[in-house]
């Protein structure tokens, strides 16, 4: 069963959390630390095993687990991954492991609860990326808030309660609007097909009337835009980031913010293609405002961590701009930027955390000449800063370049404005580097700072390696993203690939599940599969736009010899 590995990757952290909660008393701090670290590292290694046997040329779901859960209302336990989910899972487990390592000495109180919440958070985030049932997706989406709330609320800075509540309520308001949108879709599905289902793949086949698409898109938009966060919904972010402990900041920036962008890609675009086209200009404008506004505000910050937080707003603007360029280059760029931002901004938060742990201040003006005292630290910071800036040869460049190309293709004016974000990023990051790293060593306190120890180096060094690798050789990542990205674009802009002659894969479908190399489909659901297959066939027949390229592609998939035997 290929689904088992994915289940393990998702739920291992939660199992670890339960084990720690039940088996280890809170005085055994070092053992708790070790168990938590082992769990999260094993999880990372397991997530890399997902690559083995993964079909990178397919847009279909793989590592599928599917079972009936609450059939009365059409809820399924349905998990699987495509290329997009795969990369985001690896991002989550790798950054998770690094975030855990960064807390070894940073967190000194209530160790047990801390690691329990951190582990639960991992499972919550991983669950979002693998769920293909709206109900399940929503559960993970919400469950994730609870541990993050505690991480900020218990181990945060001075205004932590305010920041934690603001974070929770802001995202919750977005989520409930998303919930209503899901329910509206659900009843529409019932009205059209007569079945109660929350299987997301079924909705990929559904043609939603334009009017409903608009409303549902708005509901999704609030849910996702608050999470991204897009301007003007970003105000919770600086508070949450500045107050959160380093590990929570890293995870918040690297993974949690990606949820919103992931939602746009996974749900808004393929389920609501027409509304996505209609709303694209609005979202592009909001993204450009976020890019420039975030950068300008970042430049004004006196607090190191707020500077990084606002730079995050700016960079996330690039991601939404890339997504809503609605072409393969832009979307791919957006996805690459999601990974890049996780690495770079995660790294920047680690850098701040390391210095805060030593000096208990984050005021930029308090530092000067750190580079002379802490050369290793300065070098690693320089690499991460340059990657965040988008220097060619590092990861940030690939994402931003593709996004700008995509935006230019969609509307040259967008690209013109967005490119200022790159310039401003260089300005605020280089200026930051100059103020804190260069110059004379200001006082004895700074002169006495210790450079990074091995553990600390090991939190930053892997990020630098990843940044360089992604910058120099992004081909495997681009190839992994290509099939799902093309499938989504084909759904949003049917016929986009007709001229270029590229054969486009179709979006994953329930019918396609049995065609993937190793189906993890439960036998009792096969009847239901056949039913939906029939229905999706009729859907295709009624489809006004002929999917020529994909239909050419299909017979080969059908003829796949590895299908029959497993049933």
């Amino acid at each position, binding site marked *: 069963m290929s689904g088992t590995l994915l289940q393990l990757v998702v739920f291992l952290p939660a199992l670890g959390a339960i084990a720690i*909660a039940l088996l280890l008393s809170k005085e055994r701090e070092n053992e708790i630390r070790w168990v938590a670290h082992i769990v999260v590292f094993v999880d990372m290694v397991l997530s890399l095993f997902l690559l083995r046997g993964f079909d990178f040329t397919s847009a279909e779901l793989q590592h599928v687990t599917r079972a009936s*859960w*609450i*059939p*009365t*209302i059409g809820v399924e336990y349905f998990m699987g991954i495509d290329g997009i989910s795969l990369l985001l899972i690896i991002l989550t487990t790798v950054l998770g492991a690094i975030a855990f390592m960064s807390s070894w000495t940073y967190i000194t109180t209530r160790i047990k*609860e801390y690691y329990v919440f951190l582990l639960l958070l991992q499972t919550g985030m991983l669950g979002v990326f693998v769920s293909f049932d709206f*109900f399940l997706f*929503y*559960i993970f989406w*919400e*469950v994730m*808030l*609870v541990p993050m*709330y*505690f991480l900020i*609320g*218990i181990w945060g800075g001075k205004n932590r*309660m305010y920041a934690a*509540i603001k974070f*929770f*309520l802001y995202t*919750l*308001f977005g*989520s*409930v*609007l998303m*919930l*209503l949108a899901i*329910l*509206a879709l*659900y*009843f529409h599905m*019932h009205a059209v097909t007569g079945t109660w289902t929350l299987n997301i793949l079924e909705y990929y086949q559904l043609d939603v009337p334009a009017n409903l698409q608009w409303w549902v898109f708005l509901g999704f938009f609030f849910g996702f835009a608050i999470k991204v966060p897009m301007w003007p919904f970003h105000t919770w972010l600086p508070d949450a980031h500045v107050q959160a402990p380093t590990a929570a900041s890293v995870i918040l920036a690297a993974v949690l913010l990606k949820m919103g962008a992931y939602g746009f890609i996974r749900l808004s675009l393929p389920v609501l293609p027409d509304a996505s086209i209609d709303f694209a200009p609005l979202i592009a404008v909001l993204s450009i405002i976020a890019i420039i506004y975030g950068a300008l505000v970042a430049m004004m910050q006196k607090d190191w961590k707020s500077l990084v937080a606002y730079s995050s707003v700016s960079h996330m603007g690039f991601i939404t701009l890339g997504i809503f360029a609605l072409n393969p280059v832009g979307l791919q760029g957006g996805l690459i930027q999601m990974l890049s931002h996780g690495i770079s901004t995660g790294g920047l938060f680690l850098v701040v955390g390391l210095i805060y742990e030593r000096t208990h201040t984050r005021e930029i003006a308090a530092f000067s000449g750190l580079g002379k005292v802490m050369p290793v630290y300065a070098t690693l910071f320089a690499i991460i800063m340059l990657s965040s800036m988008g220097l060619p040869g590092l990861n940030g460049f690939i994402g931003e370049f593709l996004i700008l190309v995509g935006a230019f293709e969609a509307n040259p004016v967008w690209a013109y404005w967005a490119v200022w974000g790159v310039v401003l990023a260089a300005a605020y990051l280089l200026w930051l580097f100059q103020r804190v790293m260069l110059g004379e060593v200001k006082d004895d306190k700074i002169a006495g700072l210790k450079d990074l120890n091995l553990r600390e180096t090991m939190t930053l060094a892997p990020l630098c390696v990843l940044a360089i690798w992604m910058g120099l050789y992004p081909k495997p990542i681009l190839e992994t993203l290509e099939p799902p990205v093309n499938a989504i674009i084909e759904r949003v802009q049917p016929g986009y690939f007709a001229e270029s002659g590229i054969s486009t894969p179709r979006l994953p479908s329930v019918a396609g599940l049995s065609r993937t190399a190793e189906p993890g489909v439960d036998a009792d659901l096969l009847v239901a599969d056949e039913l939906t297959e029939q229905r999706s066939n009729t859907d295709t027949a009624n489809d006004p736009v002929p999917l020529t390229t994909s239909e050419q592609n299909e017979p080969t998939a059908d003829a796949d010899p590895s299908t029959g035997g497993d049933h």
Partner: protein
Amino acid sequence: MDSMPFSSSDLVALSPEIILTIGAMVVLLWGSFDSARQKPGNFAYISLASVLSAAAALWLWVSPLAASGVTTAFSNQLAVDGFGTFFSAIFLLTAALAILASTRFLDDAKAHHPEYYFLMLTALIGMLIMARGADLISLFVGLELQALSVYVMVGYLKGDRRSAEGGLKYFILGGLSSGIFIYALSLLYAVTGVTALDALAATLGDGALAANPILMIALLLLLVALAFKVAAVPFHLWAPDAYSGAPTPVALFISVASKGAAFAMMLRILYSGLGPLAPSWAAVLAVISAITMTFGNVAALSQTNIKRMLAYSSIAHAGYALIGVVAGGETGLAATLFYLFAYTFMNVGAWGTIMLLRRDGLAGDQIDDFAGLGQRSYWAAGAMLLFLLSLGGIPPTIGFLGKWYLFGAAIGAGWVWLALIGALNAAASLYYYLRIVVAMLIREPEDNVTLVNSTPLNLTLAISAVMTVLGLLWATPFLEWAQRATLSF
């Protein structure tokens, strides 16, 4: 047969109530003999045994009777159907949990045990009849039996001024609403000439009376009285005082079971008797629902006394449950039923956790009393976290599924604005639920607060906590049960 006023199947249909009556009499009579020599725990055992026997009778005798095609008993006074069974089961369950939660509390409060359990059992009999009455008269009798018992229970701690005040307020406003209710029923009878619900529906069904002004007045008064009973705004004023003044286990019992019984009666009258008038009452209830949940949540935001906070929260929850009544149809009804089922566990759990706390030897009822609970007892704090998340509709809890289903029903029936208000309210409500969470898990414990555990209370909390999670993970049987219950109409 004609000479007999009732048949043996009537007695079978009434068996849960009969068993409870016997139990109540035993408790009262035994308690009147020299109570000083008796162990107070015995009365709890007898009550619990009669509640469980009544539940068994419901399951083993009443349900098969309904399945065999019998629909009413006692000349159409009592309905024998899945709807009645569903609510009866909820009330019996709540009573069982409330009895378990009461034992230690009564000891600590130095209150008399026998009368307390007697009142709880008589209230329970009233509730069962409210859920199962098929005639306006039997429903009213059930309502009064329930209400009169509960008034006394709220004021049970005679020495406590707040308890007495709560009881008196509840009695005066409850009496007023009962008066309005019986007046509405008499008007209905004047217009239609019948009191049986099915006959009422048949009379109203032909539409000849649709424009009758007296009928409209009767409907309006009826809705006012029902809104009183479920504590919907603007007829909620008794609830915060009654709930916060009542002994905590009584508040637990009435905030779940009395509210549920009022809902059962409301659904029975509206759907079974006044179904033909649905367009009229649905619009009124939609407005009441929106105001109720909004006001309940806004008022709860600023409370520092946790019992008052939960009182306002339960007002808000009545507003949510009304969404399903408004949406109507099989889905809407099932959503309300499932929500009340879910509400049972999360609310019993939340009230039960309050009973763990004791400040300076007195029952703790401030949010501050929760400070540092997590460091004293992971289990208590973890369970309370679940109950609060469930009340706020956050997964992985049954409350989440309940809200999902309710909002879905509203959207499916076209009440999108109501679903929107409900969803925004659910999000806003987290603000005050989180205040308790903050106290429990983030703040440091205070010295003068102690935990009072007792095995029965822990059992109540454990059952509630398990069901709060299980209700989502293994939701199918409960959902299907609620859906089957709606087929009665």
